[in-house]
C-alpha cells in the first residue's frame, strides 16, 4: 500500500514535471536552477564537446520527441545539427518560434555582430558571437526570461520560478564586484577561438588575439609567429578549452613565458547555479593569473 502510494506520488510528479531538453549544460544549469523539481532536463551535448561540430544523433531525436521545451543557445551555434534533430524528432511543439523553443541569443544583445558574411574569413557568425553563456550578466537576464517561459508551462509554479531566477540573479550580482576586482589588472588573454569574448568584454580584459588565424581554422605557424612578435615582452595568459588541441596554446605560452590554462567552456553536465558561478570563478582565476 505504501509502495503504491509512493508510486502514485512519483507518477504524479513525473506527469507534471516540464520535460525540458537543453542543447548544452549551460541551458541545463539554468533550468535546474529555476525549475528545481518541477522540470526534468536532458542535455544533448556534454560540456567537453564543441557545439559547432556535433551530429544529429538518434538519441537527440529520442530526447526531443517528447520535450515540452527546448532550451538552445542559438545564433547559429547549433546550426549543423539542431535543426535536423528538431525536424526529425517530429515534435511540432519545439519548432523555432513556438513557445516550446527558447533561445539564449533571442533574450540578450550579442557582441561581434555584423562581420562580413564571407567564409574566406573562416566559419564566421555574422549574427554575432554565439558563446553567450560565458557572460554571467547576460546569463542573469536569460534566467529571468527563462523563468517566464517555464511559467507558461507550469503556471501554478510561476512564482517559484521567478523567485529562483531572482536568487540566481542576486547571486551573480553579489559575485560581480569580486570578479571585477580580481580582473582589474588582468593584462590580457590570448584565446584559441572566439569563445570567451563575452567574459573578457564584460570585465574590460584586453583580448590580445586568437590562436586560430580565422574562426574554425586550426592554428598555423604563421599565426603563432604573428602572436609572438606582437606580444613578446608584455604579460598575459593563453586560455583554451578542453576540446581544443593543446599543442599550439602551450607552445605560445612557453615562448611568451606566460601561463596557459585548459578550461571547460561550459559548466559540468549536472551543474546548478552555484556550479556555474564556480565555472566563471575558474576562468576569472585563470585570467587573473596572467598578471604574475
Amino acid at each position, binding site marked *: 500500500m505504501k509502495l503504491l502510494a509512493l508510486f502514485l506520488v512519483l507518477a504524479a510528479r513525473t506527469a507534471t514535471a516540464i520535460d525540458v531538453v537543453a542543447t548544452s549544460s549551460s541551458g541545463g544549469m539554468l533550468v535546474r536552477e529555476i525549475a528545481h523539481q518541477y522540470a526534468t532536463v536532458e542535455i544533448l*551535448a*556534454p560540456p*567537453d*564537446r*564543441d557545439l559547432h*561540430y*556535433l*551530429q*544529429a544523433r*538518434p*538519441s537527440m*531525436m*529520442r530526447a526531443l*520527441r*517528447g520535450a515540452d521545451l527546448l532550451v538552445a543557445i*542559438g*545564433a*547559429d551555434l547549433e*546550426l*549543423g*545539427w539542431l*535543426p*535536423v534533430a528538431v*525536424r526529425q524528432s*517530429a*515534435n*511540432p511543439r519545439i519548432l*523555432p*518560434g*513556438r513557445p516550446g523553443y527558447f*533561445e539564449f*541569443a*533571442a*533574450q*540578450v544583445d*550579442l*557582441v561581434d555582430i555584423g562581420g562580413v558574411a564571407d*567564409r574566406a574569413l*573562416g*566559419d564566421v557568425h*555574422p*549574427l*554575432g558571437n554565439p558563446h553567450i553563456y560565458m557572460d554571467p550578466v*547576460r546569463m*542573469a*537576464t536569460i534566467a*529571468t526570461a527563462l523563468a517566464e517561459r517555464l511559467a507558461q508551462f507550469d503556471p501554478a509554479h510561476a512564482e517559484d520560478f521567478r523567485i529562483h531566477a531572482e536568487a540566481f*540573479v542576486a547571486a551573480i*550580482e553579489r559575485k*560581480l564586484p569580486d570578479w*571585477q576586482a580580481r580582473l582589474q589588472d588582468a593584462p590580457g588573454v590570448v584565446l584559441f577561438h572566439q569563445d570567451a569574448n563575452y567574459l573578457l*568584454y564584460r*570585465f*574590460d580584459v584586453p583580448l590580445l588575439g586568437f590562436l586560430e588565424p580565422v574562426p*574554425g*581554422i*586550426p592554428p598555423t605557424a604563421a599565426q603563432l609567429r604573428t602572436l609572438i612578435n606582437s606580444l613578446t615582452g608584455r604579460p598575459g595568459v593563453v586560455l583554451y578549452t*578542453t576540446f*581544443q*588541441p593543446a599543442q599550439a596554446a602551450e607552445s605560445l605560452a612557453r615562448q611568451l613565458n606566460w601561463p596557459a590554462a585548459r578550461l571547460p567552456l561550459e559548466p559540468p553536465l549536472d551543474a546548478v547555479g552555484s556550479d556555474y558561478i564556480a565555472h566563471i570563478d575558474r576562468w576569472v582565476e585563470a585570467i587573473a593569473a596572467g598578471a604574475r
Partner: protein
Amino acid sequence: MVLTTLVALAGAAPAAAQDAGEIAELRTLIEALRSDYEQRLSELEQRLESAERAAASAERQPTPSVAAQRTVATPQGGSVTVGNAFNPQISVILDGGYYHDDSGGNGNVLLNETIQPSLGGHGEAEHDHAHGADIENGFNLRETEIAFTAAVDPYFDAAVYLALESGGEVEIEEAWFATRNLPAGLRLKAGKFLSDIGYLNNQHPHVWSFVDQNLAYQNLLGGHGLQDIGLQLTWLPDLPIYTVFGAEILQGDQDRLTAFVGEDAERQALGLSAQKDGPRLYSLFAKFSPELGYDHALRLGASYIRGRQHQEVHEAPLFETGLEGDSALWGIDVVYKYDNASAYGYRDFNLQAEYLQSNKDLLVRSGDPATIGNARNLTTDGVYIQGLYGFAPRWQLGLRYDALGRTNEVSGDIRQRFDSSDRWSSVLTWTPTEFSRLRLQYSRSDITTIDGIREEFDTLWLQWILSMGTHGAHNF
C-alpha cells in the same frame, strides 16, 4: 566663415593691389590662414572622432551590472538565426576529380554491370544513367548539386535538390514537401525523394565517405539508390529507445526493381503485359538506436521493398525471352559511431555495414516454347562493410570491402549460379574546413562482368568536394 571672407577678398585683390609684391604677400597670408584653419578643423575632427569612439566603447562595455544589462535587453522573438530570412537556404556543391583505372577507363562501367541473373532494364531502357557510369580516365566533373530548403508556411517544409551534369543536363534529385505539425510523432512527406530505407540510401553522393557507391547499392538499387516519386509516412513513437517506423508508396520508376519494356510492339511480341497503374513500389523500414551515452551511438535498421511489376528481356542465341513478375528487396543495416571529444574529428571512429538481397519472382512469357510459363526466381545479394578513423585532426582513413552476388542464382524451374564480384577500397580524406574536402581513394576490384568474364583492375580517385552557401546539415 573666415576663409570664405578671405577668399572673396583675394578674388577682389587684383583690381585693388597693382603691386605684385603686395599680391604675393596677400597670398602668403591667405595660405597661412588656410593652413591654420585646416589644422584646427582636423584637430576638432579628431576630438569628435575620439569622443565618438569612447561613447561607442562605453556602450559596448557597460559597467558590469545585471540591472543595467536588463534594461538594455529588448524583449525579442523566439529565435535568432540566418534561417529566418524568407529566401530558401541555398547551397551549391561542387564534386569532381581525377580518375584513373587500368582497365582502359572502363572500370566504372564494369562496376555498374557486375554479373547477376536479373538484367533489370539493361539492353532495353537507356543505359542506366547512374553515378559513375560515365566516368572516364582523367579529369571528371561529377554532379554539381544545388539545394534549396525552407519552411513553406506553418504547415510544411520543402526541399529541392538539383543535380547538374557536366554536359548541362539537369536532373531533379529530390523535390518534396513534408508536414511540420502532425501529432503523435508522425511525419508525412510527398514528392520525389531519396527513400529512407537502409543507411546510405538517403545520402547524396557528396556525403558518402568513399568516392563511389558500394557494389550492393550500385547493382541492386542503381547508382542513385531508391529514388522515386510518392509518399512517405514515418512514425517516431515516444519511447525510451529511439525507434522509427516508416512506409513509402512509390510510383515505381526503377530500372532495377520495377523495369518495364517501354515499346508497345516489342512488349506485345514478347508476351508482356501493359504497364500497371502506379504506384508500383512499396517499402517498409524500421530503425532502432539504443541509448549508449554521449560517446557511442549505434543504429540498427531493417528494410523491405516490394515491386508490383517487373519485366526483363533476356537475349539467348535462338530466342529473345520475355519475363514478367514482381520484385522484392530486403536489407539490414548497422552503424556504430564513436565520437571522441577532441576537435576536428580526431579519434572518431565509424563502422557501418549493410546487407541487401534482391529477389525477383518472374514467369517466362515468351522465347523457347518449351519454357513458357516456367518460373524464374532470380536472387542476388550484396554487402558492404566499412570503417573510418580520424587518425589526426581533420584527417580520416577508411577501409571498405564490398561484394555482390555471394548468393547469385536462378531457381524455380531451372537452377543456375553465377560468380560473385568484390572490391577492396582504401580512402584518405582531408577536411580543411566544414566546407571543403579532398579525398584520395584506391580500390582493387575483382569483377565478374555481365558476360561472365573475370576482370581485375585498380582504380584511383582524387576527389574534391566544396560546398558554398548554407551550412550543411550534420546528419547521423
